[in-house]
């Protein structure tokens, strides 16, 4: 596996003046966010800061009221979620969303959907190309499962494996879509310290081994400080600070946002 150069100047994901409102509430307010290729960027902020809303806009679940989302230079604002997956953005959810009654293997195979083509006639007539494609789908899915240590559980239903493993399964499914950017919504929530450690190692490994960029929302400051190359801080829908983890750690605006202003 080639090692990819860090600190490239290339911007993979960029939001320009991104605004999302729900009724009278402005959840995201003119946000400018930049994510650089090959880096791990974190989006942090107190509860209700609008982080998950940013994710939902970027991945096409919400349509923004204003601003743009640019991915690899292309405007993807308001595209449908499956189109965005095809472009190369995959995601996980804060409250794990697996296909509960499918097996672990089927869950990851589903991740190949956007990268495969077989249609109705191919499914019914099973020409060689379809059989090959299915084999390849299975092989890649099995590979991803092994990577996250779920090979043994491949025929278990997703709902029957422990919580920590479900999270890894969700990440494996996201990786199966062959993304360029993967957005993780609080990947460490609900994990015990050992599982969190394993997760951090895994994230570091994939970013080292693959041409991948990671954007994550995280509450666990140890994770944020431990693996991020770049941190963006949000509060009340706005960006209040950004920088390297060390700078952020000591930024008075960030401390104020987290601990509350003196009113």
């Amino acid at each position: 596996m080639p090692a990819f150069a860090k600190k490239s100047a290339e911007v993979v994901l960029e939001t320009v003046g991104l605004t999302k409102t729900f009724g009278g509430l402005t959840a995201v307010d003119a946000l400018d966010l930049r994510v650089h290729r090959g880096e791990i960027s974190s989006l942090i902020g107190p509860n209700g800061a609008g982080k998950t809303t940013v994710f939902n806009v970027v991945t096409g679940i919400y349509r923004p009221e204003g601003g743009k989302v640019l991915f690899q230079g292309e405007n993807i604002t308001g595209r449908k979620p499956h189109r965005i997956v095809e472009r190369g953005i995959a995601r996980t959810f804060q409250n794990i969303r697996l296909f509960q009654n499918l097996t672990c293997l089927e869950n990851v195979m589903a991740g190949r959907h956007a990268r495969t083509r077989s249609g109705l006639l191919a499914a019914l007539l099973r020409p060689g190309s379809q059989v090959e494609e299915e084999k390849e789908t299975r092989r890649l899915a099995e590979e991803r499962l092994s990577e996250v240590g779920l090979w043994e559980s491949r025929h278990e239903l997703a709902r029957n494996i422990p919580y920590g493993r479900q999270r890894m399964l969700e990440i494996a499914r996201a990786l199966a879509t062959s993304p360029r950017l993967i957005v993780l919504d609080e990947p460490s929530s609900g994990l015990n310290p050992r599982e969190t450690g394993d997760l951090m190692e895994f994230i570091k490994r994939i970013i080292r081994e693959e041409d991948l960029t990671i954007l994550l929302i995280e509450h666990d400051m140890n994770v944020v400080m431990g693996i991020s190359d770049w941190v963006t801080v949000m509060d009340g829908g706005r960006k209040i600070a950004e920088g390297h983890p060390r700078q952020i750690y000591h930024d008075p605006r960030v401390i104020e946002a987290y601990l509350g202003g003196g009113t």
Partner: protein
Amino acid sequence: MPALSGSLTGSRTARLALMAGVILALVIFPFFASDYLLDVAFFFGIYVLLGLSLNIVLGEVGLYDLGHAGFYAIGAYTTAVLNTRFGIPVLILLPVSALAAGLFAYLVTSPIIHLRGDYLCIVTIGMGEIVRLALINNPLGLTGGPNGVYGIDSPTLGFLALDSSTGYYVLIWVVVALSILALYRLQRSRIGRAWNCIREDEIAAQATGIDVRAYKLLAFVLGAALAGVAGNLYAVKLMVVSPESFTFWESCLMFSIVLIGGMGSVPGVIIGAAAISLFPEIFRSFASYRLVVFGVVMILMMMFRPGGAWPRRRGGTEAQDLIRRLGRSRG
């Protein structure tokens, strides 16, 4: 029950043997059965087809469709009208009926496909009723109003007339066998996987790259097309169609078939269809009580076997599955 289904499907060989047994029984059946039994088997086949067709929508994708009789009616009337007006042979009308029902499904479900759960359910009930009422109102003088359309030709295959009970029996079970093959292939394909993902979690399905809207529509179109095929065969067998064959009750029966058998399970649909179509024949002498018994059976099913009589099995080998089940029932 787990022990029983386990022993029936415990290994691949046992399953193949079971399948071979079923096929053999189907083949030799007409040599021994009376015309009455062949007719019962025909209607059993119709309900298997209807169950399979609704199973695509309800079982595979999890969309509540309580108006499926509407698609069944479109298929039956397409055959009836085109045959009686233009004399087109009924077997040629088989794919035509499928297309008509599929196209109709595409047109009526396109605007409502984004609805979820109970909302979709209500709209499909309305759709089914509108079809039935439209047929009663005799649009363009085509459907014959409450009396329906009669005088539909018998099927002929070249010079071979299929107008005996055996002929209809062979016709329907060949269609059933082909449909089952097709559905198994769909289940084990990218499309079947996408359908199941949508059933499990729509948002996650989108985030995995699945065009939820397109795959839901595909399920409705295919489900309706298969119901249209059933409609064609029904019209051909009875030689008459009328609106009273396509009531809301008929949609409910289809729904029950899928629920009794187990959502998304082909053997389940066959068991469900057997329960719905054979049960009333067996208990014909207690005709007035059979709905009571039916109701009690449904309640007991939901209490003790909510997954259906033969739920879909996933993953692994059957043996692994069996071990897991045993482990669970012990723990």
